[in-house]
């Protein structure tokens, strides 16, 4: 991967990081309400995978999806306005943090049901194959979702029907407050995928370059028509599960130890050392990103509320005015 590309990879991680930090701050000011699940610490995964995602590919993710949505192309302003619940949000303010959608960008959510998006990803892949389209489906989920029966049903069918899905399992070791070792008899997600005859790779989820490389391998495999591919990203979230999580289930020492492997810090250090990047460029990235995110916040703040009279619009498609029961 050439220098510019690696710089780009770092920049995408920085964008996610800054956006998530701002969201945290805005949440404490009650601008963002409900649940807020931050991706801080896991940026390498989204950055590495999304670098391979084309406009025509489909992406479906979890409630921790802000970074994926941003890198799929949804403007930060639309994402921020959605967090604020405003009309200019990418879901008209109706979804909030957990339900970012964009038809234009083929971003199918944002799902608050753990595992909820997995069969839908398989269905999207089925449609693409049936319609003869050059289109991959990328499905993001945590290792907690692998405990849900629907993962197994979906994996089985994706493999059986040889569907073009890239399963991206973001293993951050905790399903909310339950550590992986306490909930799974088999703690290798990749092993489970292989049990369904799906090719799988383990990835260093804190290393942006490893994420990029292995994702590329998966994409090549799926595009060749070999069926689905499974990537297990070993990663870690530096923040609690959501804003109101007192983190009683893990110690500060463990979190601090993982923070030393911060994907942004390590990649930045590496690129600077290799001469692939200069401090001035990094500073420029930061400045660009600050402007992008601050104007997103201003946009969100200025965006109007959807009129309450429109509450019943879009219950049913095909009839715009109100959904009668």
């Amino acid at each position, binding site marked *: 991967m050439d220098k510019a590309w690696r710089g780009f990879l770092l920049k995408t991680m920085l964008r996610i990081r800054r956006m998530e930090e*701002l969201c945290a*701050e*805005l*949440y*404490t*000011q*009650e*601008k963002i*309400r*409900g*649940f807020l699940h931050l991706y801080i610490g896991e940026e390498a995964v989204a950055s590495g995978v999304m670098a391979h995602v084309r406009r025509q590919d489909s992406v479906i993710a979890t409630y921790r999806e802000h970074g994926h949505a941003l890198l799929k192309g949804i403007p930060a302003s639309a994402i921020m306005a959605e967090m604020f619940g405003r009309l200019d949000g990418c879901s008209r303010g109706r979804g909030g943090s957990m339900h970012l959608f964009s038809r234009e960008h083929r971003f199918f959510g944002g799902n608050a049901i753990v595992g909820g998006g997995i069969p839908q990803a398989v269905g999207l892949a089925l449609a693409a194959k049936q319609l003869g389209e050059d289109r991959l489906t990328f499905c993001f989920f945590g290792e907690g979702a692998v405990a849900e029966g629907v993962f197994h049903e979906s994996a089985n069918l994706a493999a059986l029907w040889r569907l073009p899905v890239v399963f991206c399992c973001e293993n951050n070791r905790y399903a909310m407050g339950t550590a992986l070792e306490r909930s799974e008899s088999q703690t290798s997600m990749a092993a489970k995928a292989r049990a369904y005859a799906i090719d799988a790779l383990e990835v260093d989820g804190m290393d942006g370059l490893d994420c990029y490389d292995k994702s590329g391998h998966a994409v090549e495999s799926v595009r060749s028509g070999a069926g689905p591919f499974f990537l297990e990203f070993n990663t870690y979230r530096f923040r609690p599960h*959501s*804003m*109101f999580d*007192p983190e*009683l289930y893990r110690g500060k020492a463990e979190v601090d130890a993982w923070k030393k492997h911060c994907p942004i810090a390590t990649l930045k250090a590496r690129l600077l050392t290799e001469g692939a990047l200069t401090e001035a460029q990094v500073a420029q990235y930061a400045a660009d990103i600050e402007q992008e995110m*601050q*104007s997103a*916040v*201003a946009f969100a*703040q200025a965006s*109007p*509320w959807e*009129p*309450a009279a429109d509450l019943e619009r879009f219950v049913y498609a095909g009839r715009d005015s109100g959904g009668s029961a």
Partner: protein
Amino acid sequence: MKYSVTMPSLGADMEHGKLLKWYIKPGDAIKKGDLIALVETQKSAVDIESFRTGTVLELIGEIDTLIDVGAVIAVMEVEADGDAADTVKQVPTDAAQPAPTPAGIQTIKPADDAGARLRISPAARRLAEQSGLDIQTLGGSGPEGIIELHDVQAALAAHPMPAAKAAPTGASIINVREAIARAMSRSKREIPHYYLQSRLHIDALTAWLDASNRALPPDQRLFLPAVLMRAAVLALKACPDMNGYFENGTYTPRAEIHLGVTVALKPSGVMVPAILNAHTLTLAELNAAFLDLIQRTRAGKLRNRELTDGTVTVTNVGELGADAVTGVIFPPQVALIGFGRVRKAAIVDADGGLRAGLVLDASLAADHRVSDGLAGSKLLNALGSLLAQPDRLA
């Protein structure tokens, strides 16, 4: 510039937190991300961080007190950099765009506390109200005495209310009511009534009736009104000017006799259905038809023709206790035969003797456009003579 540190919201339902401990003091230089205090929430104690880099100026929040989310707990000096996040805080929040307010709560009207509630169906109540009928005067024929639609209809048929309001949506309800009102008004307006009366001696009739009934099974017992109606039918056969329709300025006598019968409803109210083709029925058949008609009238199960095709009407106010009746003809009919109650009276015999005996006052109201006193008298005389020889009535 000055920057206010506020109690952060750390969850969807957090309203306040308790400051347990400061990690900073005035004068400290702190960086974004540094921990500044320990706050206790409902879930547990949480470290809170600084979102800005700068110098601590003042600590405001008091230890061990509950502080509302959003309240200022400290002040810092930070670099002014046009940070929109600051703007977010400084601008009076939501001033220009108020959050949508929830719909006002509707006040609930207090329940109507009537003493003993009248049991009446909504449809019946509505018709009564629209017709100006006092529902307190109604009796109900529905289950458990509930006043139903047809109870109101029946009451209106007997006592047309002068102030009938606009028609409700149920077409069948209003037709009957209005038809009666129209009919009676039209009758009094158009028909030049004349009235005749005749006192009948009915000792022989009542004796015959008692004897006949002793020989009949209970479900075939003859009722006096039916006997009177039979006599009326037979008498009418010879009086074409009394049985037919007067319409568009012309009278048309009818061969068939559809005998209208006034049926009293409990506790009040009257309907006037017709026994169709009464002239083809024997006394026994007429008796049965009469009983059936009453039952179906009270159950609201009349057929349309029975309400519209009557050619002449008999009214037996004797059941209600009046001595005699001066009736109102139902247009387009041209006659109304009335019977008063059976009662003891003084009778002067042919030979001039005086005795007490049973009498009944029969009356005739007739349309003077069609018949005159002679024809009317003939009818009443025929009636009297038939009832004097009841064997001929079978």
